């Protein structure tokens, strides 16, 4: 708990950065809308999806990504490189617990900044969910989505116990996961081979699934199945996380003396 509070307070210590990145996000959303509008010029719908649905999806996906999946992705690599894990490990609370709680704290503190943006999202063309059921299922699917994001960040972050310099790999991972999650381009616009590939990976479960439910591309009935798949990913990633941690703790090499 305390780690979460600490991380939340850290967010407020850097509120200026958050406001700046908020402006960056607004600009990004504006550009996205312009791009999709120009792609759609002269067409009412592409692959059976109309412009307003597309803009809603793109806006929401980027917003959600900004809120739940920040660029300072995992808190682990920096702490390992700077040897600060030493301090984390002498605490009477598990390391993974500390990291997860800290990430949740960070998100919770970012939330108010995000809420500021909701009116802007509407102005930029985001519509309400296609139905009340879809809205409800969307909200429901955000929970496992967030769990997946967090677990992935822990799993990837823990690689830093094996190799200290992880930054380059994180950038690559970040870009690939962004793309395969359907944040940039929804799965329905992907070539079928790529789409099938994306579907067997966990990334789509945190971005595509909730947003496609919201705009109705995953119907109310299919949504239950999609959420079940999310839950399977949560379970799998959790097990993976535990397994990796058991090995990582044996590998721990604290930098600096």
């Amino acid at each position, binding site marked *: 708990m305390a780690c979460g509070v600490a991380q939340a307070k850290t967010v407020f210590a850097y509120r200026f950065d958050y406001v700046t990145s908020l402006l960056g996000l607004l600009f990004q959303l504006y550009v996205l809308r312009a791009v999709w509008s120009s792609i759609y010029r002269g067409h009412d719908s592409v692959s059976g999806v109309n412009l307003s649905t597309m803009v809603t999806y793109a806006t929401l996906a980027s917003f959600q990504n900004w809120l739940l999946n920040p660029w300072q992705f995992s808190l682990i690599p920096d702490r390992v490189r700077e040897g600060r894990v030493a301090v984390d490990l002498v605490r009477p*609370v598990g390391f993974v617990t500390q990291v997860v709680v800290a990430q949740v704290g960070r998100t919770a503190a970012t939330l108010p900044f995000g809420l500021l943006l909701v009116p802007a999202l509407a102005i930029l063309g985001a519509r309400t969910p296609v139905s009340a059921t879809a809205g409800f299922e969307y909200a429901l699917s955000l929970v496992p989505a967030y769990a997946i994001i967090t677990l992935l960040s822990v799993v990837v972050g823990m690689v830093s116990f094996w190799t200290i310099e992880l930054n380059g790999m994180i950038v690559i991972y970040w870009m690939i996961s962004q793309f395969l999650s359907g944040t940039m381009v929804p799965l329905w616009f992907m070539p079928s081979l790529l789409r099938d590939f994306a579907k067997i990976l966990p990334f789509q479960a945190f971005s595509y699934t909730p947003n496609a439910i919201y705009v109705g591309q995953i119907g109310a009935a299919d949504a239950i199945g999609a959420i079940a798949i999310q839950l399977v990913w949560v379970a799998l990633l959790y097990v993976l996380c535990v397994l990796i941690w058991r090995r990582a703790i044996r590998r721990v090499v604290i930098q600096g003396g």
Partner: protein
Amino acid sequence: MGSEPIICVESLVKEFRRTKQQSGRFSAIRTLLTRERTVSRAVDGISFGIPEGELVGYLGPNGAGKSTTIKILTGILMPTSGTVHVAGIVPWRERKRNAAQIGVVFGQRTQLWWDLPLSDSLELVGRLYEIPPPRFRFNLKLFTELLELGPFLSTPVRQLSLGQRMRGDLAAAMLHSPRILFLDEPTIGLDVVAKERIRSFIYELNKEQGTTVILTTHDLDDVERLCQRVLLITDGSVLFEGDVESLKNMHTRERDLIIRLPPGSESIELANFASARIVDESGDLTRVRFNPQSLPITELVSFLLSKYAIVDFSVKEPELEEVVRNIYAARSL
């Protein structure tokens, strides 16, 4: 002593396997996949026991393996082999339980939250360790007084000076009243006043609360002021274990007798003493080096007094600094 030592270390070994860093294209990935390893032994068969309530100096030159040992004792590093018990707990197996009974300060890094005021950090530590509120308030008040934290309690940690931060860190390490305190270079980079404040805090803790303290330092004044016993290690092995006096005696048996003669008097002759010699003559001061074991000081002094008109004399004890310098130098040959 009789009772079980609170810290038992036996045949402790820690090897570091370093993967060779690959260079060139895709170096990060190739480093990850490579099998090339170099092995170095940071700790090479160390054994010792520390009775409860003792304040022990853990000394050794750079790279001797001090920090590595501390990391193992605090449970954040797994040894390659050997056994360790800290108040009955194997630290790396029950890291969380061990954490609750020890306090740690790594002088080179802080356990405080960089961006938060010191008071917030201390409060968070209180919650992490689930310290009962009355005890928390009591300790906070006590440490604020002893370490004079008052003036900067509300300053963000990143704006604290090194000395202020170190005091904050010490307070954080002791908030949960641990039985054992590990200090890895707590006075590094501090001025004389700050060092003194930290020393007297450590002294108080050990004396008043009976906290067992293991102190790593390169500042031998710390050791002379604080430590009842020292452990000296080099290259991962124990070189000496005992009190400060016997360390000095063991490695420099000789003492210097400094004699002041009246101006213009003839110089001293020591011809009939085999184990005494003049090492320095400057102005009216003569420095005689002798071995008190073969030549009792009383004998030397009474001889000199009977033959020369001595104005003043003093015996210089060897400085720990010098002793340790000699030991380190001898090892690196």
